[in-house]
């Protein structure tokens, strides 16, 4: 046994760090595979691996030429490199007294050359290596070692970035409504599907004063930047929950103007309040134009947009508009991602049939299927508020 633990290596910290990353046994990741391919090309070696250490095994997030993603940790070169915490280069293992009797050298795959550099987790814990292997002896000059360290740094930042993104996706999910307001005589539901991992679409709702306050907004662009702005907008609109929808939108607009004027970005939004008893809907539409009511008689009303998008930094007098949701009517607001997946010949007919045949839940399920089936290029969000028909009301009373 040649790789006795070194006194200063904290294996428990390594194990905690690798478990926190949650990366073990995850699928291959093209962003990391790209680095291993590049390393193979640059160094001209038959085997390259991004190896991570678990308790008793080494697990490869990416590998070329090794033919497997798992191997014992005991006696492994990479375990040695992690413990040493430095670039390790072994030009010819069979001529190295420390390594000549190693099972990976004496036996299959008869390794001769090894070079590896440690990968660090966010707290500096050494969790694995980027390593190069060959069955022929070779050397690695100082310049090449520097290159190996550069590539290891790249792999490391990809691993940590993915981890940050996973956290962000979880946070965004918790910012979405987890319960549906209890509104007798109404059914409320929503669906959102991100094009990537983070969404620039926002939907929100909460019950207040015998009704429901709700928002659907679409931040220009998509991904992490758009998601950050969406989270800020949600917080702004939720402040002072019982103020007029117009005041809430004006204030959100003012804040966005101040924050994003230089970014050349903007947000389209529909923000409304529905009074359950009367079916009266007060709303402000900021350049969104995607609010509709499917009437009980199967005709559509388009809720007219009354203002420019938020965050334009242009003077704008905003106005509140009003609509009436009668028994059997269905209000729907969506982001333009929905338009991309609907039948361009007859989008209204398609939505009407889905709502009438499948109900609110069935229609959203169908939208979800369409969104995930398409090569989604935009975030997609739909919110539906359906008021029971008179017949349905009579049945329940």
């Amino acid at each position: 046994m040649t790789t006795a633990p070194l006194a200063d290596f904290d294996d428990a910290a390594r194990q905690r760090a690798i478990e926190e990353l949650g990366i073990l046994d995850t699928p291959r990741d093209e962003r990391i595979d790209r680095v291993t391919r590049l390393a193979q090309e640059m160094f001209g070696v038959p085997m390259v691996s991004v190896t991570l250490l678990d308790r008793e095994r080494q697990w490869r997030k990416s590998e070329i030429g090794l033919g497997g993603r798992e191997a014992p940790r005991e006696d492994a070169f990479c375990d040695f490199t992690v413990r040493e915490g430095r670039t390790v280069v072994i030009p010819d293992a069979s001529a190295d007294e420390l390594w000549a009797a190693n099972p990976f050298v004496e036996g299959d795959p008869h390794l001769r050359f090894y070079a590896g550099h440690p990968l660090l987790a966010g707290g500096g814990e050494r969790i694995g290596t980027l390593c190069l292997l060959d069955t022929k002896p070779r050397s690695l000059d100082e310049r090449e070692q520097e290159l190996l360290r550069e590539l290891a740094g790249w792999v490391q930042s990809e691993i940590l970035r993915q981890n940050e993104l996973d956290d962000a996706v979880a946070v965004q999910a918790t910012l979405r409504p987890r319960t549906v307001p209890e509104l007798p005589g109404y059914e409320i539901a929503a669906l959102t599907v991100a094009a990537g991992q983070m969404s620039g679409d926002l939907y929100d709702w909460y019950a207040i004063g015998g009704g429901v306050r709700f928002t659907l907004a679409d931040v220009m662009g998509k991904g992490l930047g758009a998601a950050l702005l969406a989270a800020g907008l949600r917080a702004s609109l939720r402040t002072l929950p019982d103020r007029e929808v117009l005041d809430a939108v004006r204030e959100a607009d003012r804040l966005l103007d101040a924050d994003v004027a230089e970014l050349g970005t903007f947000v389209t939004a529909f923000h409304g309040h529905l009074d359950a008893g009367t079916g009266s809907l007060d709303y402000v539409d900021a350049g969104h134009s995607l609010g509709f009511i499917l009437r009980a008689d199967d005709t559509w009303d388009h809720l007219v947009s009354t203002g420019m998008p938020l965050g334009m930094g242009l003077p704008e007098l905003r106005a509140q508009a009003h609509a009436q949701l009668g028994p059997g009517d269905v209000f729907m607001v969506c982001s333009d991602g929905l338009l991309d997946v609907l039948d361009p010949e007859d989008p209204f007919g398609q939505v009407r049939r889905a709502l009438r045949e499948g109900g609110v839940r069935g229609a959203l399920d169908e939208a979800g299927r369409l969104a995930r089936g398409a090569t989604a290029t935009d975030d997609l969000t739909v919110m539906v508020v359906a008021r029971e028909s008179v017949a349905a009301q009579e049945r329940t009373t």
Partner: protein
Amino acid sequence: MNIERRDSAGAVVVGLDGRLTAAVAPLLRAEVSDLVAAGRTRVVVDLAGVDFIDSSGLGALIGALKATRVAGGDLRIAAAGEQVRQVLRLTNLDRVLQVYPDADGAFDGV
């Protein structure tokens, strides 16, 4: 996407073609910002060759509009096709970005 620049009576015409989307938006913004920095604050964006615009493209137009106005000038758009007009209408941005029929006439009478 190509960006062409030419002079017209009292203004600079920036001609675009293809799709005005996230990939091109930064180019347009940089082009107009260069013009404004050089004191050319009356800009016409000729959209005759643009067959599609998305929200990033709109953002670039609005950003460019603000840049020219801050510098005391203006930005106008010309010869937009149906899809561009529709997007401007839906977002109510046609109120700040009126479409002029012809790039060379966009600043007539100013």
